[in-house]
Structures are given as C-alpha cells and as structure tokens.
C-alpha cells in the first residue's frame, strides 16, 4: 500500500470515527442528511403542484449560475495573482513534501483533497431544491447543478495554482493575466451594450445576453452555466460539450503542472502557510487574526471618534471603512442586495425576498463586528455598563442591515413601481428579523457561554431561530387569512414585525449581563 493511499484511507476512517464518537457531530450530520431528504420530498410535491405560469423561465437560472461562478472565477484569478489557492495542508508540507514520495503522486493526492473541498463547498446547493423548483428544475437538475459546481470549483482551484506558478515574481505576466481575464468578458459586455442601444429594454437585453453564445463561451463560468442548463433541458450533446470543455481545461492544467513544473512545492507554500495561520488563529480563539484579510489597506483617515461605550461603534466604523470598499457594506452584503434586486425583478414582487433571503441572513448576521468582539477581552474589560456596550457594539450591524434593506427593497420596489408603504413594511420586517437574530445570538451566548462545539452552537442557533420565529409567522398567516382582502398581507407583515420586535427584545433581556456574568466566548472548532 502506498503511503498516500494509506493517508487517505486513515483520514477517512478517523473522520468517520470522530463523527461517531461525538454525539453533536453525529446529530449535525444526521440532521443535514434528513434535511436534504426532506428537501427532495418537498421539491417533488412543489414541482408537481406548481402551475405552469408560476415557473420562471430557465434562462434566469442560467444567469444566476453564471453570475455565481463568475464570482469564483474572479476570486481564483485574484488568489492566483497573490498567493495561489490552498490544496494542501501544513501537515502535507511538513511530512509529505520532505518525504521521498514522487511529487506527481503528491499532486494527485492534493487533487483528491481538492475534490473533497469542492464537494463540501457545494453542499448548500443540495438544499436549494425549493428555490430551483421556481425555475422548473427538479431534483435531478439540482444534482446536475451540484456536479457542475464541483467540477468548476476543481478547475478554478487548479487554474489558480497554475496562475500563481506562472506569474509569481513576474509583474508583466500578472498584468497579462489581468488583461486576459477582463478580455474574456469584453465580448459579452459589448453585446449587452449593443442590445440595449437597439431595444432600450433592460429586461429584454438581459434575456438576450444570458441566452447568447458570448456568455456560453466564457471559460468555466459560461461553460458550466450553459452545460448544466443544456443537460436540464434535455440537450445532452450540448451539455456534455460545455461541461467536457470544463473537464478538459482541468486535465490540461493538471498536465501542465505535472509536465512543466514538478517542483511546485514553493508555489503552494505561501497559500498553505496563510491558511494554516488562519486555522491556528481559529484554534487559539483569535477571531481577529482569523478574519483578517490579506488585502493591502492604505491608511488614510485615522482616529476613533466618541467616548465610553460609544467608542466601540467609532472603532467599528473606522474598521469597516478601512476594510470594505463600500463603507459599512461588505462585499457579501452588496452581492446579496444585487442578487435580491435581480430575484425580485424576475418574480416581479419584492415580498419574495422575505421568503428567500432570511436563510442567508441567519448566517450573515454573524459577520457583525459586535458578535465578533465577544471573542476578545477588550469589550469585557471596558469600564462601562454591559447594556451600553451591547447596544453600541451592535450599531454597526444594525446600520449595515438597514442600509442594505433600504437599497435592496428600495431599488427593487422602484423598478417594479411598488407602493411606498409596501416597500417600507418589507424593510421593517426584514430589519427587525436581523434584530431578532442578534437577540437569539446573545441569548445563546449567555446560556451556553459558547462552551460547545461550533457545529453544535450553529445547530442550537438554527433551531432556536426557527422555533422563535414560527409562532410569529403562524400568527401572521392565521390573522391575515381570517381578515382577507387587500389589507390581509399588510396586516400579516405588521404582526410578523411586531412579533420580531417582541421576541428579539425578550432574547436581549434574557441575555442580560452577557459581558459581566458569563465566560468570554471561545471558538470551539471541534
């Protein structure tokens, strides 16, 4: 048995053993599998009962998938130009790279690990059956999307490595890669401009852009989106052609690394060391170091405004404007807002966002700096009241959420010419949902002291949110349906927002003294 097969076999075996030994991990996996199974069953019923008019055209699915993978194309090229992507771990560098094992075999081992990473990264797609059913995609289509996504992730990881290998320390080549990457999208952009000038209709232009060959020809993103769409539509030949192009690129990239540069160790070292440092920071509970980006920041304006507990907000504003390109808004929040606007326009109703985006918000709320501050000692030791510190440390995420919602619902509402009151109510419901999420987070921190594994903590949080919001949703639906008429929807949303405010406030009250009467939160990775 070669050492590499031994390593893979033992790693898999030990991972399974550790899951079986840990009730929390086992429960998490069982629930995940049960949820996927539940999603499949629900999608079967919803697909069967869906009226043909309620299904959005499939080209929107192509566009969304294209946009999604394009984001990863950008990230991969950017990583390739800076430090390469991570396909190995530090233990591989320290033990395998120094061993007399053939580097080519080690690379193949890295590719197997890469497949595992791609598989886990795309796991969320398996939960999207209900969303994708809106485009007439059945569960077979979901699995095809998952496979296409996995393939594109593996290709992009390898492309990133090749770019790093070819451009490291060569500014001219780096510039060439940037130009080529942009050039790939130029025909599509020119086509879009010409179409818009010709028709003057933004939606018609978008449709012709998505269905045009200029999109399909864009490497990886275009190939995957067109290939998966073709297979879902039953055009097997075209589907295999586009996905085959993707697979061919992957093979060519691997062949290039194997034949031209078997001495690739140095090329993967920077990315591996960086990833290792982040993992170590997480293990040590240093959330700030774990979340620090490698982006070079130019320090222009300096200083921390306000005094006392309010200085925490001042610090957050300074950090946000320094780290984000969009001030208080982060890149994910901008992308979600743009995605939300597109989704609302596709379905011609802004209220669709109230049903489709909360799942993302449940996790995005954790990106607020206030919750992260709980993992370092400063906030605990500032001589101010716990209440004031909690309020001021969450101003940043509240402000960010409000700006996001005003932009998302406002722009989508304006495009769709929605009633101003309707837009305002949607903004209130969604913003108060974030308030409720913050309250639930603090209540859980207060009672668990975050003294459980991160997986278990996530599970508790997820179910707590569902349990707490459920009565509000039920009440809104029941009273709304009893009332009937045009006001029913407004009344339902009003009741839901009142419930969110009430439940959120109760959660905050339950979490009283979280900074003065409980253990400092620690990140538990196991």
């Amino acid at each position: 048995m070669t050492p590499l097969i031994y390593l893979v076999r033992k790693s898999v075996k030990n991972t399974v053993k550790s899951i079986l030994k840990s009730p929390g991990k086992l429960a998490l996996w069982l629930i995940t599998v049960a949820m996927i199974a539940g999603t499949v069953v629900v999608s079967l019923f919803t697909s069967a009962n869906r009226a043909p008019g309620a299904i959005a055209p499939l080209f929107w699915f192509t566009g969304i998938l294209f946009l999604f993978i394009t984001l990863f194309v950008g990230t991969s090229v950017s990583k390739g130009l800076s430090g390469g992507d991570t396909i190995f771990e530090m233990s591989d560098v320290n033990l395998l790279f120094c061993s007399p094992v053939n580097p080519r075999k080690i690379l193949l081992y890295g590719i197997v690990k890469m497949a595992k990473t791609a598989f886990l990264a795309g796991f969320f797609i398996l939960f999207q059956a209900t969303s994708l059913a809106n485009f007439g995609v059945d569960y077979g289509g979901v699995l095809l999307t998952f496979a296409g996504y996995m393939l594109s992730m593996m290709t992009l990881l390898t492309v990133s490595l090749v770019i790093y290998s070819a451009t490291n320390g060569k500014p001219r080549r780096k510039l060439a890669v940037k130009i080529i990457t942009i050039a790939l999208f130029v025909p599509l952009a020119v086509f879009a401009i010409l179409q818009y000038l010709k028709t003057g209709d933004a939606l018609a232009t978008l449709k012709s852009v998505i269905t045009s060959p200029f999109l399909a020809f864009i490497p990886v993103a275009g190939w995957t989106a067109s290939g998966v769409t073709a297979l879902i539509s039953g055009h097997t030949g075209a589907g295999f052609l586009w996905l085959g192009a993707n697979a061919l690129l992957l093979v060519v990239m691997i062949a290039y690394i194997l034949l031209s540069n078997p001495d690739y160790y140095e090329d993967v070292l920077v990315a591996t060391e960086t990833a290792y440092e982040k993992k170590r920071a997480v293990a040590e509970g240093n959330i700030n170091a774990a979340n620090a980006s490698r982006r070079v920041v130019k320090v222009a304006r300096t200083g921390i405004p306000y005094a006392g507990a309010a200085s925490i907000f001042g610090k957050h504003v300074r950090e946000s404007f320094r780290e984000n390109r969009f001030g208080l808004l982060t890149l994910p929040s901008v992308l979600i807002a743009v995605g939300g606007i597109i989704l609302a326009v596709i379905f011609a109703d802004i209220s669709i966002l109230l049903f489709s985006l909360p799942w993302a918000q449940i996790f995005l709320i954790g990106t607020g700096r206030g919750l992260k501050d709980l993992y370092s000692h400063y906030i605990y030791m500032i001589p101010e009241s716990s209440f004031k510190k909690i309020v001021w440390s969450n101003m940043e995420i509240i402000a960010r959420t409000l700006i996001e919602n005003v932009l998302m619902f406002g722009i989508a509402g304006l495009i769709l010419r929605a009633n101003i009151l309707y837009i305002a109510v949607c903004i209130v419901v969604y913003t108060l949902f974030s308030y409720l999420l913050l309250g639930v987070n603090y209540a859980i921190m207060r009672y668990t002291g975050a003294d459980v594994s991160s997986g278990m903590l996530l599970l508790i949080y997820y179910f707590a949110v569902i349990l707490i919001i459920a009565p509000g949703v039920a009440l809104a639906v029941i009273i709304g349906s009893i009332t009937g008429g045009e006001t029913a929807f407004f009344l339902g949303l009003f009741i839901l927002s009142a419930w969110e405010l009430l439940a959120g406030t109760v959660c905050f009250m339950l979490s009283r003294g979280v900074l003065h009467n409980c253990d400092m939160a620690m990140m538990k990775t196991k």
Partner: protein
Amino acid sequence: MITVQNVSKRYGKFLAIDNISLAVNSGELTVLLGPNGAGKSTLIKSICGLLRYQGTITVDGFDNRSTQAKRILGYVPEMSVLFPALTVYEHLEFIARAYRLHGWAPLADELLKRFELDDKRQKLGKELSKGMQQKVSVCCALLTKPKAVILDEPLVGLDPHGIREIKAVIADLKHDGCALLISTHMIESMEENWDATYILKEGKIAAVCKRGELPRGKTLEDIYFAITEGGIAE
C-alpha cells in the same frame, strides 16, 4: 489590592481551579508558576472577569466585575489580540476613549518610544509581527495607569530588547506601588523582582514561596521541580 478567596472554576465536569485563595498587595510582584494545564490562565481570566467562577474576587475592594475594578485593572493576555484594521496608535486611542482618559497622548508617545513602536504608529494590527503585537498589548494595558496589572506569559515571543523593557516596566510599576500578578514559565526572568510565588499544580496551590523565606541553598527552580515532578519540597 487583588484578593482571591476560595475561587473554583469548572468546565463541565473538569475542575480547572480548585478553591484557590491568594492576595496581591500594592507594590508587590506575585508570580504564578505551574506546568501547562495547571490552571494559571484560568485563574488570571477569572480575576479579569472574563470567566464565571465560584468564590470571591475583589480589586481594591471592588467586585472584579464592577466598572470601578475594571477602571484600575490592566491585563496583558497570553495571546495578544489586536484589531487587524486599526493602526497601532488607534489601538491606544480606542483604549483612551473607551476608558474616558484625559491627557493620555504624552503617555502614549512615551510607551510607543519605550517599546520601539514609535515608527510603527501608522502600521495596522495585521501588519505587525507577534512580538510587536505583544508590545502593543502591553502599551494598551499600561495606558490607563492601572493600580493593578495582570500579565499572562508576557515575555513569550518578545525580542531581547522587548524582554528587557518589559522587565524594566515591571520594576518601575512595582516601584510606583502597582500590584503585579504575572504568570510565566520563565522562572529565572522574575528572579530579581518577585515577592511571592504561587506554584499551581492540577488546579490547586501546591506551594507558596515568599522572598527571603526559601530554604537555605534552594532556589525557586529547585522547589518548582520538586513539586511538579513528584519530589517533595523541603
């Protein structure tokens, strides 16, 4: 200044510190010694109000979780945690504003010069080496002019200049009447200034040594190894 009475801390079934009592007076340097996992960091975090515990801890007579206690307590954690997107100077400014300090700038300048960070004041937290992060962490703790300072492994990761400066700062603080509680593995590093040493083992105080009361011919190191490696201290 710092009083710990019958303090215990449990993590689930594991008893990390078991009924510990100690006192650190003003102008005294008290050292916590013990092998890994003895409970030193847990005790320090409990004193700083970062952990729940059973028992009583006061700082200058105030409950350690009160704002009065927090105002006079300085803490240098084992692992310096800086904010990646704040500059060195902004860390000090943040502390000054959060603690509502007045006229803090000259002391900030003095601390930055002392720890050779003067030319790094515009550097971001994420751009600093671990040693420099540790120095910034010390500056943050001292900017509030605390009456009691707790340092958890303060010398780890520092360069020789940093070690010399920390030792000098500790001597100055002690001279100025500050109560100091320091956890360290480097026994010899505190040899010159220590007043009392508590040796912890498996969450309990295994021995208390006072300067001038050591058995003749025995060093702190001899006693430490006798206790932690199974021997009996004379």
